[in-house]
């Protein structure tokens, strides 16, 4: 299809590029850190959207891929002296393999059962790592700051990893778009609408779902490596935060599940709202409650999210909003 000609894709890309270049233009390191977090959220939400928005499978524990990818990548760098350039793809690969194996086990579950299983998986992996000595158990792993020397020092490393995250965010948008307008994507959407009907129409649903799960895991896995490397430490509590999983869902739903721009818009909006709330001591401890409430409101009043709502209202904008 000629869907690459749609303005929608280029608009999404342009938004990421402009956002990504802002810290360069302003030269602000604070802005860079904020944009880094937003890009991380965009990449996570866009990836989750392939499973949640296209195939209709709600993964409540999707952060497990971020955590596992991050852990393995961190271990390879901190203990095995791998370079970042190898550790990032390795994190993605491990996340993909995990998704594949998990898919065999839990993708035959539907609806709430699948969602519950994904939470279980996240908790199980966290508990395992918590008790697994080679990965540092409950304390986790750390790198000495000297490790950054090989990347031109800590300051340069901050920029290098920023650009890596930038590239992965663009990759997430491109992947999202490519899947949506592919034969494979049509099969996923058929599954979302009616899985039994999809099977009758000839969609090899087990394969399609597994592939969607794998594709939704790779970029989170790679992002995990970047995030924790920047952070100079990784520990179970920060790698497998269930809150983060829920926030990912909120972002996808807020922007519009099943659309390409939705996760981008949703992630940016959510981060904006959250950073606003974080300045208030009252809301600081209520983040999760806030995310839950927001999710409830979206489901009740704008189930198709910002982009979906706009698409429904202004059909002329279909090529611009996607």
């Amino acid at each position, binding site marked *: 299809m000629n869907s690459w000609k749609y303005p929608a894709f280029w608009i999404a890309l342009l938004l990421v590029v402009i956002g990504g270049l802002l810290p360069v233009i302003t030269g602000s390191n604070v802005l860079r850190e904020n944009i880094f977090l937003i890009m991380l959220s965009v990449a996570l939400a866009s990836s989750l959207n392939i499973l949640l928005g296209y195939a209709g499978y709600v993964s409540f524990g999707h952060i497990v891929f971020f955590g596992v990818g991050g852990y393995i990548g961190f271990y390879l760098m901190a203990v095995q002296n791998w370079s970042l350039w190898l550790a990032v793809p390795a994190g993605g690969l491990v996340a993909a393999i995990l998704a594949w194996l998990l898919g065999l086990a839990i993708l035959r579950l539907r609806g709430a059962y699948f969602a519950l299983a994904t939470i279980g998986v996240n908790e199980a992996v966290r508990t395992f790592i918590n008790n697994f000595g080679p990965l540092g158990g409950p304390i986790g792993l750390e790198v000495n700051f000297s490790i950054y020397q090989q990347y031109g020092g800590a300051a340069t490393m901050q920029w290098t990893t920023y650009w890596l995250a930038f590239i992965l965010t663009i990759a997430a948008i491109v992947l999202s778009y490519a899947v949506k307008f592919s*034969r494979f994507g*049509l099969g996923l959407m058929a599954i979302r609408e009616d899985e039994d009907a999809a099977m009758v129409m000839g969609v*090899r649903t087990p394969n399609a779902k597994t592939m969607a799960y794998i594709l939704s895991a790779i970029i989170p896995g790679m992002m995990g490596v970047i995030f924790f490397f920047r952070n100079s430490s990784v520990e179970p509590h920060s790698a497998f935060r269930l809150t983060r999983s829920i926030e990912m869902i909120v972002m996808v739903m807020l922007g519009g599940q099943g659309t390409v721009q939705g996760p981008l818009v949703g992630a940016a909006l959510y981060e904006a709202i959250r950073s606003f709330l974080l300045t208030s001591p009252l809301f600081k401890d209520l983040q999760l409650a806030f995310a839950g409430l927001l999710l409830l409101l979206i489901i009740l009043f704008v189930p198709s999210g910002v982009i979906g709502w706009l698409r429904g209202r202004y059909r002329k904008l279909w090529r611009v909003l996607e």
Partner: protein
Amino acid sequence: MMAAQENILQVKGVTKRFGGLIAVNNVTFDLPRGQILGLIGPNGAGKTTLFNVINGVYAPTEGHVIFKGTDISGWQPYDVVKLGLARTHQIVRPLNDLTVLENVMAGACYGHEHHSLKEAQGIADEVLGFVNLSERRDMLAGSLNVAQKKRLEMARALASRPYLLLLDEVLAGLNPTEIAEMVQVVLKIREQGVTILIIEHVMHALMNVSDRVIVLDYGQLIAEGSPEEIANDPKVIEAYLGDPDLAKRLMENADGD
């Protein structure tokens, strides 16, 4: 391969149990290539269940389904459709949030032939024209009315380019004009060389289009023959006694036409 009278479908001693309930009980019949075979029976007789066993939604508890010489008993539905056996659903199952075109494209992409999106779009447009749904092409499938959804079911199944098409009550709920249109579509499909197995409650329509009719009652095949033979078969009339009105209509229409 055998000559002209080759059986495209053979159902051999098929039984399907749901716990204690025997929905389909030791059913055997052959369907020669190119025919339209009608399948009738009172509500709950097991007709839809038989379709579900034939296209792989359920594995038979006992017996075999042989399609084009291949034993497909227990196959997954997505493997069955790739051999060239498609079906419609009695209770329509549109992919609501996709457009009519996308619904039919999915049928073409994943059906008997493997097609790219672009090729699928060509097939979908052709099939939508065939079932008279072209003007709804870009609407969401969920927004169609019942008659249109039935045609969408048909289009989606046809887009898979089947050799054998199972139609489950495609006329139910339609008005007389819509029924007449749909009957024409069914006949046109047969002209294209597609074999058809059709479940129908609208008797006069079924009697008109079918070459042969089989009758299910309480899961068992109780009669088999030409439409006239079936309409005058005392066993069949008895099966419908729970619904005397239906029995009467069955008689009248077969005599009249």
